[in-house]
């Protein structure tokens, strides 16, 4: 089978779990003998050798003439008074969208250094006669919606030139692309939801993103949710019929470089780790509050917060306010070998997410024999037995469990031993088989 896939990121350049999941799933799909053509905003050195054919949307020439707009059919134009999208207005250029801001972008935004904040000029370049190249940096920049639309225009061009059986797109950024490709090719569309606007923003959702997500969910032939937790959100918050949503849990990719990177833990100095975007969704504030309470009971523990995000400054200030700066370190955004190193050094991994559709990183921590504490408000807690689980808001219980892991070594030892068995059964192959099964149901 040949799959046209639309994604927004792919290793090694990833900002979170989305790229990691796309990599794991596509590798398992190709191992099953399927071909995947994976469209990305642009290439930044990814996949020089890769199992999938990577297509950078920002390098595909688009005919300058009147291509069909990817927005046609988007509910804005709907005349039917019963249409659920009636009255929707998409403010394309002036909305400051930042669902996944990197540290650099956040700083740029903060200090007003980003020249392209409200500026859509220079978004296309004339190439050879009658063709143009669209600017799609794929950085989750401030005018992301404009980018997303340009990406969809290119998707239409690709859909015309490529041969494939099914379209599979990932998250809202690729919704217009997927639907546009479906309209042009007539192939079935699968939309995989890795995160919703409710996960990222709680109740303060960005209405435009929500509408695009809902548009995608109602247009797709089938929806994949990465957990039952996410399926519930899709059904309850987006009004999607449950029978149209299939749950396919993520898995974890075994890293071959792991053995070489193993660093012994320091048994005298215990480390408790938070690793993820420092944003509302990931619950970094609960981690900081817990750290202060743990230090009251077990002095001398070190807490590390690895990652970047729009809450970093607030967290640094709170740590100072609590007077625990001596025991609390911020590493900034980590990648590749640095992540492996930090996992290897840690004694406890905590994922206090407020809302986590899946959460691959606890699985990665387990690969490094680190016992994990995860929020119950996460998809991964559905498949993990040998992890400690807490409600993200229950700071005292989080403290109880962190202290137990630090004090009673038999606890971590047993969890780690059992986790090894458990990880053997969490494989991308299983996820890929479910996805293929779903493709087959959609094919004539």
């Amino acid at each position, binding site marked *: 089978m040949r799959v046209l896939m639309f994604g927004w990121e792919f290793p090694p350049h990833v900002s979170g779990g989305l790229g990691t999941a796309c990599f794991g799933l596509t590798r398992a799909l190709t191992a099953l003998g399927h071909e995947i053509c994976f469209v990305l905003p642009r290439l930044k050195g990814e996949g020089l050798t890769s199992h999938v054919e990577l297509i950078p949307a920002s390098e595909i020439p688009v005919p300058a003439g009147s291509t069909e707009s990817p927005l046609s059919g988007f509910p804005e134009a709907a005349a039917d008074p019963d249409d659920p999208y009636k009255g929707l207005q998409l403010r394309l250029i002036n909305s400051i969208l930042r669902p996944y801001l990197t540290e650099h972008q956040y700083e740029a935004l903060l200090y007003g250094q980003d020249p392209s904040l409200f500026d859509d000029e220079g978004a296309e370049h004339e190439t050879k006669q009658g063709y143009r190249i669209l600017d799609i940096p794929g950085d989750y920049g401030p005018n992301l919606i404009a980018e997303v639309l340009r990406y969809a225009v290119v998707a239409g061009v690709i859909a015309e030139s490529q041969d494939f059986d099914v379209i599979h797109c990932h998250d809202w950024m690729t919704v217009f692309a997927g639907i546009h490709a479906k309209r042009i090719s007539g192939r079935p569309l699968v939309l995989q939801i890795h995160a919703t606007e409710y996960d990222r923003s709680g109740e303060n959702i960005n209405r435009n993103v929500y509408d695009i997500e809902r548009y995608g969910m109602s247009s797709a032939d089938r929806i994949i949710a990465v957990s039952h937790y996410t399926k519930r959100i899709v059904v309850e918050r987006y009004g999607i019929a449950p029978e149209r949503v299939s749950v396919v849990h993520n898995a974890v990719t075994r890293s071959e470089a792991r053995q070489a990177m193993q660093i012994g833990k320091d048994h005298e100095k215990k480390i408790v780790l938070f690793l993820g975007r420092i944003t509302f969704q990931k619950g970094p504030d609960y981690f900081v509050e817990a750290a202060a309470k743990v230090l009251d009971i077990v002095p001398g523990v070190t807490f590390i917060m690895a990652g970047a995000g729009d809450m970093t400054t607030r967290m640094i200030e709170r740590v100072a306010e609590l007077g625990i700066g001596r025991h609390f370190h911020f590493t900034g955004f980590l990648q590749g070998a640095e992540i492996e190193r930090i996992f290897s050094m840690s004694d406890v991994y905590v994922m206090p997410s407020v809302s986590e559709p899946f959460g691959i990183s606890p699985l990665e921590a387990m690969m490094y024999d680190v016992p994990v504490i995860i929020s119950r408000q996460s998809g991964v807690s559905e498949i993990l037995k040998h992890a400690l689980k807490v409600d993200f808001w229950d700071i005292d219980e989080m403290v109880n469990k962190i202290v137990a892991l630090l004090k009673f070594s*038999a606890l971590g030892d047993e969890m780690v031993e059992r986790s090894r068995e458990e990880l053997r059964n969490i494989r991308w192959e299983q996820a890929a088989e479910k996805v293929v099964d779903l493709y087959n149901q959609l094919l004539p």
Partner: protein
Amino acid sequence: MPAVCIYFQVHQPIRLRRFSVFDINRDHSYEDGAANRQIIDKVAEKCYLPSNELMLELIERHQGAFRIAFCLSGVLMDQLERHRSDVLDSFKRLADTGAVEFLDETYYHSLAFLISPREFKEQILLHRKRIKALFGQEPVTFRNTELIYNDEIAKTVEQMGYQAILAEGADRILGWRSPNFLYRPAGCETLKLLLRNYRLSDDVAFRFGNAKWPEYPLMADKYAHWIHQNLAADVINLFVDYETFGEHQWQETGIFEFLRRLPEEILKHPDFRFQTPAEAARNYDAAAALSVPDHLSWADAERDLTAWLGNGMQKDGFRSLREMEKAARRCRDASTMHQWRLLQTSDHFYYMCTKWFADGTVHKYFNPYASPYDAYINYMNILDDFSGCLKERAQGKQKSARNRQNDKEDLHP
């Protein structure tokens, strides 16, 4: 003439309350009063009361030809006395029929034999005293926690004057031999060993309500027919949890109807009769000596100690508990000993078992914890608090001893 020997284990632990790291050194109460009350009420209504009533009816109807044995754990008797004296009264009525034998065990349904011989014996004596007070019987049969058994335990029990002991009729100790005879524990002179017929026992305890079982639905006449096949047997031992009736097997499965018909169906065959363990031990000789060097139990497929002491957490918790014996005794204080012993109840360790956790099937019954890890954390927090109490009380003792000394010196300058 074969005898059918029916014995019921009757036990509910005193469950521990949620005890977080913030409770350590602050709150020294460990029991989950509300949950224990709720569970004992539920089991009383669904199992103990209706089952006892049925047993009484059957004993009266068969004029003593139907005979049974119970072993009530001390912690269960405590809870009944506190909350459900009606259940305790119905057990007393059963005792008054003369057709019911009460067995001894460790008061706290504990693993005390692994703590120290002294602790093991003291808990048995506590239990013996309690049975005597409640039911007027002096038990001559001993059954250890969850049928845990080995040669060592048998020897200790014989020295304490018991005539019979119960154990699991596991294939690994019997080999080609049959569980339907009495055995002489290796190293013992007079003690007789009764072995559970696990096939026939589990037909009732586990398989009875299973609609996928080929023998489903099991009727009393069919079951009696299976028992009647064992004409060469001396004693057929059917040992089950009392909660089988109405709890493990719900009333809707027809388990009470089955039980109601069972005695008459078995007694239809003139060669068969019912006996209690003590009667069987008196009436039959040991067929052979049997050596069981390693611990044996009736739990899980392994039938060893791994349900309680299989993983590192269980061993760590138990080791910490055992190491407190000296300090606990030094307090010379009944309530301290009681608290330490409450923590010995085997269920606390059973909840920490990770063996079958992945399947989520076994070890779940009335389990107050979401995971074995939660069970361990809670238990260790309590142990931590208790160990602090022990230190405090020891210091208190020293201080008051010193004060007394000082007072004396004051008096005799």
